[in-house]
């Protein structure tokens, strides 16, 4: 089972939220999410000062495999984005809850934090999902927008052309 820090809040779409206790929250994707995505190679992050509603598509994480939407876990205004992960997306893989943070938001409504899952609830959700699909680590349970549907699950293989 992947890492799930106790001091964070979580969404069903695998974002984590850290309450900075100053009216802002820091947001990233969970260790479980980065495991599902595999090696990240590109991130699209929101502009500072832009406003988002609850569960709006706010960012995109692209791995070698797929593009996945990241949804705003709370409504509010973007304060800061992590420029470091734009240059080094692998930070999300290596340190999802630390250097791999994505952006901070100034909350419109602090009560929205109460609606998020705590670590225990998130863990239960992951366990339930893994129970359902049998192996606990299935790609298909990740809420993504995988436009090309290219998860290798049912694509064709090919033995090669070898134009040497």
């Amino acid at each position: 089972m992947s890492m799930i820090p106790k001091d964070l809040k979580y969404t069903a779409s695998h974002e984590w939220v850290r309450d900075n206790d100053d009216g802002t929250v820091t947001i990233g994707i969970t260790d479980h999410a980065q495991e599902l995505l595999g090696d990240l190679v590109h991130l699209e992050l929101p502009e500072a000062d832009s406003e988002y509603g609850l569960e709006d598509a706010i960012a995109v994480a692209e791995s070698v495999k797929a593009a996945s939407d990241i949804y705003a876990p709370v409504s509010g205004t973007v304060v800061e984005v992590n420029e470091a992960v734009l240059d080094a997306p692998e930070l999300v893989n290596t340190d999802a809850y630390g250097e791999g943070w994505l952006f901070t938001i100034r909350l419109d409504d602090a009560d929205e934090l109460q609606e998020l899952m705590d670590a225990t609830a998130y863990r239960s959700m992951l366990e339930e999902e893994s129970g359902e699909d049998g192996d606990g680590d299935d790609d298909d349970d990740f809420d993504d927008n995988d436009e090309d549907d290219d998860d290798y699950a049912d694509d064709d293989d090919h033995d090669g052309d070898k134009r040497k």
Partner: protein
Amino acid sequence: MQQTALYQRHLQAGAKMVDFAGWEMPIHYGSQLNEHKQVRSDAGLFDVSHMVIVDIHGPGAKAWLQKLLANDIARLTTPGKALYGCMLNPDGGVIDDLIVYYRTDTFYRMVVNAATRQQDMDWMQQQAAGFDLTLTERSDLSMLAVQGPNARTKALSILPPDQAAKAADLKPFFGVEIGEGFIASTGYTGEDGFEIMLPHAEAQQAWDALLAAGVAPVGLGARDTLRLEAGMNLYGNDMDQTTSPLISGLGWTIALEPEDRDFIGRSALEAEKAAGVKQRLAGLVLEGKGVLRSHMRVICSNGEGETTSGTFSPTLGKAIALARIPVASGDGCEVDIRGKLVPARIVRPCFVRHGKSVVAS
């Protein structure tokens, strides 16, 4: 779901397993990027036992293959020589792409895709009527691929001396029997290396020996990024039953000479040529930020096209794709990445060879 003879070894190596055409196969063993780089810089080991090996025996084998394939098996005159080509439907659509190894005029070995196994076998059985031959699926054999600049040396090091000598003598795109098995200087990565067919127990031993020789296991994820960098087509993505080889970058695999060889799909291809081929499969290198995927809209100066395969190229550090676009479309285009138009360069569809970018910068 089916498992290969190497299934337990994948688990031991920490593989994440996925369903691939009904087979439980390793997608990666931790990091697809690292596995990709391992093949470009050293040597990687793939289990491709899900692929379908079919032996064709009989006096009718040669004539049958000349009818079945758009490429001409008569081009093979040296035992062991391999031929890449397509099996077409009467409309010129691609039923599958495959490799045929020439053994004798009455014995050929063919390797086809796992995902198309049933349609391939049905089609071949149907077309075999009236020809004196037998088709035998070799499910008793596993298939390994060892690829990378050091693959040759490391693979030879685990073979008995007599077999190693035979393998070392192979020219590119040739194969030879080794004991109960078969080794060929072929691959799907754009690197040097071998593909090796062995009885299951021997394949398990070879797997262990290759790992001990410092060859790292590589999953199907990296197999896809490696083949795309090498500009090699993937059946189902870059061509299928609805696309002819002429618009799939596979014109070079069609043998229209001799004119009296009446292969399946020939008249459709001739009609397509006579009417003027409208599209081509090109390579794209993304100039802006983002990652290319399949089925993205491509806007060219003279019309629109679509990406058929796309990925982030670890070697180039940029997104690359194969795309079906109008012919004579110049050297620049834009790709619709989730509503944003991002500029891309149109290049020859081959991005990396032997570890290095072959795209002009």
